[in-house]
């Protein structure tokens, strides 16, 4: 069952078509990457999912139906523009925002206390939010997003402003939520985090879907018919190789259209090459992103 399903949504602002016939579905319990360059339409798509914007056309299904006020309590949202009430103390701010998610204030206080301990913020709960560092506010924002135990999490750039220790903590937290069965939509520019965390992705550019599907399948699709080989000593000449270039500690071999990776492996073994590593060369998500956005590939 899909937690989120959007079909052919279109959203325009004046003459700008911010989202143009976008469709994708997010499975229950997966971490789904919502990717795209700046201004691609990601935030607009998120706002349409959350019913902040009404689409001009298309259909949005969230947690099994259209968005309702009651469903808002089952969603945790961390927008790119982080927001907390700056002039009140941290605990009061978190309790108020949790109470707006339907939590009983006493239960919210208890739950928030636990999160504050876990996030090393307990000592700051009586401080005004504006007195906290950016990283602390980022963690407080995460508490607001998670405290009411949502079924659907939408997080926009969850790692921005965090040091490596806190980045790891957030990654662990997202993994933990996934293990709990929470569906997570994550929008970020940090592609290595997407590679590490996401099961499936959609890449939007200029309001249109450019890539959509399982991350591994997409990488294979962009593999470009090459292999990575690392061996002791120099590689011999092998038929079917049209280009060879160093790639980190290995060599990237570009194959002719009629040559398969198995042909190359067989030829290398036949020549008694001591192979330490042999793999189909998959592009990084960074490379795919750049290629798609620069127009080398597209999927409609």
């Amino acid at each position, binding site marked *: 069952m899909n937690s989120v399903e959007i079909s052919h949504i279109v959203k325009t602002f004046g003459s700008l078509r911010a989202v143009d016939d976008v469709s994708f579905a997010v499975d229950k319990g997966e971490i789904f990457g919502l990717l795209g360059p700046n201004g691609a339409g990601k935030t607009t798509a998120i706002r349409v999912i959350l019913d*902040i914007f009404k689409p001009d056309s298309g259909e949005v299904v969230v947690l099994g139906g259209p968005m309702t*006020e009651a469903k*808002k309590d089952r969603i945790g*949202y961390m927008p790119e523009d982080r*927001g907390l009430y700056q002039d009140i103390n941290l605990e009061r701010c978190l309790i108020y925002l949790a109470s*707006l998610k339907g939590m009983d204030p006493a239960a919210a206080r208890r739950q928030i206390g636990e999160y504050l301990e876990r996030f090393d913020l307990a000592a700051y709960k009586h401080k005004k939010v504006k007195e906290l560092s950016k990283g602390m506010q980022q963690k407080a924002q995460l508490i607001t997003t998670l405290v009411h135990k949502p079924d659907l999490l939408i997080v926009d750039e969850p790692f921005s402003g965090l040091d490596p220790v806190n980045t790891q903590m957030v990654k662990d937290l997202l993994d933990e939520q996934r293990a709990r069965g929470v569906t997570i939509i994550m929008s970020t520019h940090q592609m290595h985090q997407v590679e590490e965390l996401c099961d499936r992705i959609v890449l939007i550019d200029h309001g249109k879907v450019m890539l959509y599907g399982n991350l591994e399948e997409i990488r294979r699709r962009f593999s470009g018919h090459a292999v990575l080989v690392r061996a002791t000593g120099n590689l011999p000449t092998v038929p079917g190789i049209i280009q060879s270039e160093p790639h980190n500690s290995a060599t990237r071999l570009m194959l002719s259209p009629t040559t398969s990776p198995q042909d190359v492996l067989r030829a290398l073994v036949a020549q008694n090459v001591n192979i330490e590593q042999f793999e189909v060369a998959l592009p990084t998500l960074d490379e795919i992103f750049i290629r798609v956005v620069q127009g080398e590939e597209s999927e409609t």
Partner: protein
Amino acid sequence: MKKFWRVIAYEYTRHVLRKRFIFAILSVPFFALFMIAIVVITFILETNTTPIGYVDHSGLLANPLPAPKPAAPDKPVPVQAFASEEEARSALQAGDLQAYYVLESDYLDTSRARLVYIHEPKRPAREQFTSFIAVNLLANYPPEIATRVIDGDKLIVRSPDGKREMSSSAWFSIMLPFVAGIAFFMAIFTSAGYIMQAVVEEKENRTMEIVVTSVSPNQLMMGKTLADIAIGLTQLLSWVLILVVPVWIARPYIPMLSTIAVPPESLLLILAVMLPTFVMLGGLMAAIGATVTESREGQQIVGLFTMPTWIPYFLIYPLMSAPNSPLAVVMSFIPFTSPLTLIIRSGFTVLPFWQIVLGVIILVVCAAGSLWLAGRAFRLGMLSYGKRLPFLDIFRRQVQA
């Protein structure tokens, strides 16, 4: 619905429990008490209780009746007789007198007396000696006539329909519209200011996007608006309690306070005019809050709307002297000037019923328009963090949410 009440409770307590709000509430009665204290102290300092003397050659004060007791807060100034001017002058030079009067032998014909002093005596001494003379001049008249003459004139102005009257003793009916108008306007601007701040703060703190994914924008704005109106009313009620309750308790003991009465028609007019004004200004402030990026910028724009509302106070003299002039009537129908114009005029004339009705209808229509404007501005501007929404765009752009 629970969330709606949580928004109200949060917004209300956030402001009301702040020190600056409590200070604002207490500052007005403290300022009033301070002004009263200044007046009383001035009166007390004005009263020099050194005796005032007289030399009577006319025989009027051969067996004088004592001077009547002065009205508070003046203190009694003793009156002392001297047989000759030399004795009086010696006492004056010795500092035993502040001044002395000489009533020549023809005083009863001329009513002219001579005042001798080194430093001119202040009002209380002069007034008390005048009362002393008046009591003795009327000594042979029946007491009721003497009392009536000493009390002086009493002018009562009645409206043609006989429903209202004004006199120097019923001064509160003239003062009420002024005082109530100022108090209401201060409460309105407090609330309206908070409404604007509430919207701007959501944008400044960038919390709008989080909050509208928890409660509906309508619930959020209605909750905030009601809380901010309640804050204004709390302020107003606090002032009423702080100022009116002591006056009410002191009424039996202070005769001046017993003349205080609140005409019900004045109260009705104030409510009829101020309630739509409350909504109109609140809506406008919310609209401003939705278009600006920070509260300081909002405060500057607020001035454009608040200044016109005070114009009637600047024109108070023409409104008092000619409350039915074309200027006064026109100002009664202009939304920003009409609230105070109608209230001020009501203190000096009987307002034609149609003018009240038309003025209130215009205010109600403007209040509705201002709510519509606030709704549009809020929907268009709520997610424009750090970006100003041009006011005209509220009318031009398509509402997004």
